[in-house]
């Protein structure tokens, strides 16, 4: 079963509670920080990531299109989920497909359709649109990183 994630941050009413929570955080900031945040240029996002959120560009459209097309085609072993920001919108809208472990960068609706037809339905990854890949599952867990050594303070020579 394929699981497709389409980032829809700030699209319609998809993330009302999440956005309200963020707005409350901004309201609770001290006035200086808030002024700095609000005076930042539009293309620089509040999180420091560049570009507009996916839901404001194409994310919502891609999500609706995938749902409609998959339902129309009667394909039921694909789950499409909206997901919230993964901080990659500087590259375009990101569509992630698991368990294949492929993240696509989508910059036009035509790209999204290509991914749908070739990968989600056809099962062949679209090489030229790949953004990141994740290694396939190993069946093993992860190794914990050892705690960082505390910085040693050198004593000044007397």
């Amino acid at each position, binding site marked *: *079963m394929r*699981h497709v*994630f389409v980032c829809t941050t700030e699209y319609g*009413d*998809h*993330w*009302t*509670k*999440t956005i309200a929570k963020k707005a409350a955080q901004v309201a609770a900031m001290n006035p200086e920080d808030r002024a700095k945040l609000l005076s930042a240029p539009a293309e620089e996002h509040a999180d420091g*990531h*560049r*570009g507009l959120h996916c839901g404001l560009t194409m994310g919502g459209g891609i999500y609706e299109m995938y*749902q409609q097309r*998959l*339902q129309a085609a009667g*394909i*039921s*072993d*694909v*789950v*499409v*989920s*909206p*997901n*919230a920001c*993964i*901080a*990659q*919108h*500087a*590259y*375009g809208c990101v569509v*992630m497909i*698991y*368990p*294949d*472990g492929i993240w696509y*960068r989508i910059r036009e609706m035509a790209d999204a359709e290509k991914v749908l037809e070739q990968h989600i339905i056809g099962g062949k990854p679209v090489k030229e649109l*790949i*953004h*990141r*890949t*994740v*290694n*396939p*599952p*190993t*069946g*093993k*867990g*992860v190794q*914990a*990183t*050892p*705690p960082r050594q505390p910085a040693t303070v050198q004593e000044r020579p007397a």
Partner: protein
Amino acid sequence: MSNEHEHCVAQAWEESPPRVLDKLRFHIFLCTDGKDFCGCEANGNAALSGALRQELAKRRLMASVKVNIMQCRQPGTAGPVFVVHPDGVWYSGLKAENVPEFIEQHVLGGKPVERFLLRSPKPVTAVPAHIVAAADCCAEKLTPEQQAEALGAAATRR
């Protein structure tokens, strides 16, 4: 820039050729802000999300485990639902107090925690039309018969 957090950092598109996220072992998607399609909101997914991130940070696993939010839109699930990819393991009903167990068994040990797996109902592709049509479609508000009907309809479509 430290390499292990590459998946969190946005760079200019040109600076960022496609690459493998080598250190990323698990990508967890947690259902939040689910628009009352599912039972996750009522079953304490906010607490679970906080506990999961805290525990991962405490054990220094943030580089190999990424936590994002999504909407599961699975009507009738007990919730809170989350998926561990790329393995594609669906969990339901795991609470904040079970997080250490989950991390030790699944994240570190590589074995899913059997008793919290989402077996029945199986993940469905889309919310049945009559549930979407109803304005107050929260899982708690459906009678058990309605829930069974919704899930049965989804199962027969598969």
